[in-house]
């Protein structure tokens, strides 16, 4: 008997049951894929490094036999080292690499040629398969280099020097755990053993170098020991430092985490709403069943069984859909790193789908609780007492100046706010999900972001690779400052008043009391330390002053006015005392950093890297004026690469801008789809529930267009309310979500770049338009509602 009741019910209320089923499928898909993605993203880098077999610590040197011998001796003697291996590499100048058409390759970093079968790590192709061997005449390169040069697999390039040339065909892009990020500053190209030997033999690269990969059983103790030595290295760092070069990839991943969390919230809100809504439909039947003597427990069991059947079917379908949906989102997270899809495994998806079944049953159980309390007649009267009810309408038509249809829509919303609450929450989350990522993306692609890397904002950047290598290897500050002074003169001769400066990097250990940390240290040549941003205190003015990042400050417990010790590798190779004068923030090196005054005489033999030469116009220029200056500089330095601030940021962040655009499009696409889907289902639900009212309006002479207008206006009003709420909430939520991400990377005070036209006008209008179109198309169904439906009014 009860089986027959359920069977009949499932068939008779087909539309409502299908809507519920669809929402359960949606919830199951979102929750399963999002939870799995949360696991995948949060463990992405460690898993990637693990898969690549990256060692605990890596040191890069350039050919210096004595230095290399010292490092080898140190590693052999260190008690913290389990094992260490070494690989060779070659530096090739950008000028030596030509594309098939003879054009120079566009590449801001130095190129490093390596074999594929090195001991340091494994490499992976675009399909995430390990690259085990490379045929002669083939080359692998990072995806961002291919994109910057519009290269595709199969394209050809050549490495030339004087009369000798080696032609290579691009096999595929490669994923390189150590140097895969454009922020690493070096591009690794993989060739076959034979080609590597030919390049080494015939092309005579300017620099050869060594890569030391160290497996330490106590990495912190090893670092402490290593930092006491003063080896000349190009790079030295552990996995956490390498992780910092992927900050942009991880920020995108963070955006997807925010999206995942929001999708889970949307799922539960919609689920609760739908179950409440469908159960309200059943109340009258519950009354009838009670009236004929069926026990409350039986009735409740009947509905729970019905929802169990629907939720099992929905969860199963959602489980199946969650795998491709999750993969689609993850594929967009990063092209540079391997994020193992479905890291939690199918098991996690299955558990989440089961959780949805549990949630549905829980919602159903709590919503049917009232069955016990309801008297049969109250249930028949749809939960009302019969005589007097609380006032429902809030707005008065007689006192309103609104058009009738708009009035009806407004009155509906304000009279039953709970009913429309689920829509408001869903749309608001949708708007937040658009604004937060777009603000983050715009912040990441703005030229002012350079200040967050503790560099002075500049109007132009001059990339002179051979000079930069000389700056690193020259060991002479005057050499750099003479160069920048000469460039200032040259620019002045050409009518450009500008200051020219260069940012130089060191690796130093900073100590305060018992605490110390190995830190990236910066000093500007040709620029005062006052030109940089500080969050508190002042710039270091004198040689015995430094500014430190707030993370360094936290790590060593030093604040403004404290004295810290740094071994800068000076003549006596002893620690020197410095007073902390200011605190700043940087996205470099996980936020750990030191800035010296330009007056401090540092040992330039210890330089680990230099940034391109920066040019800041002294003249106050319009946008056109800046462009004209840039053109002139390009002409003056025609053999070199000259970039504007925006262009440099774009290159500095690698193909991240393009990835960010892709992310933006995906997020907007997903949100628009969710909004459309939710709108269609909600409007359909409302039409089913309001058939009688629609019939009544038709009987009093309302045209179909007016009734459609009433349905659509409600969605429109809710959407506008949601937009206002979303806009208000998006700023604090940005600070809580992605702001936290920036903070983790080292920038605790991020000013989000907000493009009001894009964020508050363009995208909201797009969503409004598409959602309204969806609601109009769905509301067309009211044409099929007959006037006779008036008789079903409650």
């Amino acid at each position, binding site marked *: 008997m009860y089986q027959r009741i359920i069977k009949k019910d499932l068939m008779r209320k087909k539309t409502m049951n299908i809507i519920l089923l669809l929402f359960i499928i949606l919830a199951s898909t979102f929750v399963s894929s999002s939870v799995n993605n949360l696991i995948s993203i949060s463990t992405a880098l460690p898993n990637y490094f693990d898969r690549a077999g990256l060692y605990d610590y890596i040191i890069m040197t350039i050919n210096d036999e004595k230095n290399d011998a010292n490092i080898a001796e140190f590693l052999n003697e260190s008690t913290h080292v389990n094992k260490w291996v070494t690989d060779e590499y070659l530096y090739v100048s950008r000028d030596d690499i030509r594309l098939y058409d003879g054009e120079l390759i566009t590449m801001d970093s130095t190129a490093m040629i390596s074999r594929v079968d090195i001991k340091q790590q494994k490499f992976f192709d675009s399909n995430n398969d390990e690259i085990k061997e490379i045929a002669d005449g083939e080359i692998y390169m990072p995806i961002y280099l291919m994109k910057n040069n519009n290269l595709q697999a199969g394209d050809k390039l050549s490495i030339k020097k004087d009369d000798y040339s080696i032609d290579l065909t691009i096999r595929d892009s490669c994923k390189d755990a150590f140097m895969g990020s454009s922020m690493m500053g070096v591009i690794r190209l993989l060739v076959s053993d034979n080609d590597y030997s030919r390049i080494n033999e015939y092309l005579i690269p300017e620099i050869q170098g060594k890569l030391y990969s160290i497996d330490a059983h106590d990495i912190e103790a090893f670092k402490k020991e290593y930092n006491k030595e003063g080896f000349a290295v190009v790079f030295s760092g552990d996995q956490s430092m390498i992780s910092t070069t992927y900050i942009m990839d991880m920020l995108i991943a963070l955006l997807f985490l925010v999206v995942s969390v929001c999708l889970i919230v949307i799922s539960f809100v919609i689920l609760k709403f739908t179950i409440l809504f469908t159960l309200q439909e059943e109340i009258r039947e519950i009354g009838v069943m009670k009236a004929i003597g069926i026990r409350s427990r039986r009735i409740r069991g009947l509905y729970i069984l019905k929802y169990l059947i629907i939720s099992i079917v929905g969860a199963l379908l959602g489980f199946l859909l969650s795998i491709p949906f999750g993969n689609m989102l993850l594929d967009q997270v990063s092209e540079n790193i391997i994020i193992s899809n479905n890291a939690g495994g199918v098991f996690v998806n299955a558990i989440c789908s089961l959780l949805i079944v549990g949630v549905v049953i829980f919602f159903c159980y709590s919503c049917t609780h009232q069955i016990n309390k309801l008297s049969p007649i109250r249930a028949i009267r749809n939960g009302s007492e019969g005589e007097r009810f609380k006032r429902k309408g809030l707005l008065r038509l007689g006192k309103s100046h609104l058009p009738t249809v708009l009035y009806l829509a407004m009155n509906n919303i304000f009279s039953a706010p709970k009913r429309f609450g689920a829509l408001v929450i869903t749309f608001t989350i949708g708007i937040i999900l658009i604004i937060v990522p777009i603000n983050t993306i715009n912040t990441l692609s703005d030229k002012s972001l350079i200040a967050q890397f503790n560099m002075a904002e500049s109007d132009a950047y001059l990339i002179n690779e051979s000079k930069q290598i000389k700056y690193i290897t020259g060991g002479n500050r005057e050499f750099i400052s003479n160069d920048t002074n000469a460039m200032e003169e040259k620019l002045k001769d050409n009518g450009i008043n500008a200051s020219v400066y260069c940012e130089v990097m060191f690796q130093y250990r900073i100590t305060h009391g018992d605490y110390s940390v190995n830190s990236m240290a910066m000093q500007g040549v040709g620029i005062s330390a006052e030109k940089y941003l500080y969050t508190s205190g002042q710039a270091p003015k004198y040689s015995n002053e430094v500014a430190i990042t707030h993370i360094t400050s936290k790590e060593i417990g030093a604040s403004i006015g404290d004295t810290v010790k740094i071994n800068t590798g000076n003549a006596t190779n002893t620690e020197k005392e410095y007073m902390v004068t200011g605190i700043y923030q940087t996205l470099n090196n996980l936020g750990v950093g030191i800035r010296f005054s330009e007056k401090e005489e540092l040992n330039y033999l210890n330089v680990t890297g230099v940034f391109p030469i920066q040019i800041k116009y002294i003249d106050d220029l319009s946008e056109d004026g800046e462009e004209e200056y840039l053109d002139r500089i390009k002409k003056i330095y025609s053999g070199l690469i000259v970039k504007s601030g925006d262009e440099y940021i774009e290159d500095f962040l690698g193909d991240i801008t393009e990835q960010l655009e892709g992310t933006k499009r995906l997020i907007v696409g997903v949100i628009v789809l969710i909004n459309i889907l939710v709108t269609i289902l909600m409007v359909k639900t409302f039409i089913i529930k309001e058939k009688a009212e629609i019939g009544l309006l038709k009987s009093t*002479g309302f045209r179909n267009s007016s009734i459609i207008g009433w349905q659509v206006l409600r969605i429109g009003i809710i959407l506008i309310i949601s937009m206002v709420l979303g806009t208000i909430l998006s700023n604090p939520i940005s600070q809580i979500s992605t702001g936290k991400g920036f903070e983790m990377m080292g920038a605790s005070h991020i000013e989000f770049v907000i493009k009001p036209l894009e964020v508050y006008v363009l995208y909201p209008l797009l969503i409004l338009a598409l959602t309204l179109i969806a609601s109009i198309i769905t509301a067309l169904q009211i044409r099929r509602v007959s006037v006779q439906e*008036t008789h079903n009014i409650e």
Partner: protein
Amino acid sequence: MNNALDVKNLCKTYIVNKRQNNVLKNVNFTIREGEMVAVMGPSGSGKSTLLYTVSGMDSITAGDSMFYGKNIGELNVNALADLRLDDMGFIFQQMYMLKNLTVVDNIILPAYQSKKGDESRKKILRRGQDLMRKLGIIEISDNDINEVSGGQLQRACICRSMINNPKMIFADEPTGALNRTASDEVMSELIKINLEGTTIMLVTHDVKVAAKCSRVLYIVDGNIKGEYNLDNAGSDIRPIERERELNNWLMEMGW
């Protein structure tokens, strides 16, 4: 006197589960302007279907229903909606109203929606209140629909049907859900409206109600089996005799 409604060879067929159900079979009748006509018949005879089909609330399968010269079957949905808004009024057995609106708001809603005339909203509201006063329900004007009795609500429904000064009112058992006192009150209001010139077609089971009309159509199995003219419709003269006369006729019809 002109014809308000001219029905010729009207057929209405429903197809349920591939089974054809001919509810109305070649129905012919005319209602003249200013008349108050009752439709009676046994349950399932097609009374309500006839009312909704001739008024355009339901589609016509075959035949014509001419409403003041306009062929209802040939009008599109918008024209039909306009006709319902401006020229027709409907009263149902159940007092259907929108839940979130007060009684007066429900009444004036069609007038606000109508484009007939350029009356200000204030005037419409006043007219709505006047109608309520006339029907003795002004005190419930600002009440929610759940706060009033059935009789009051049905009178409010009459007010709503009257708000756009329709040419004709279609009423489907307007007193069916009311007690005798409330039923008498509602009928006396309808008679007043009819005396003021509005044509009325109503479906009823109640002989007392039908006896107050000028003419009664008796429908059996989708066909008009007969019609009966009552003198001095609406007047209070000899109400018992009118009822007795009608009762006798209905008995002859097989009531």
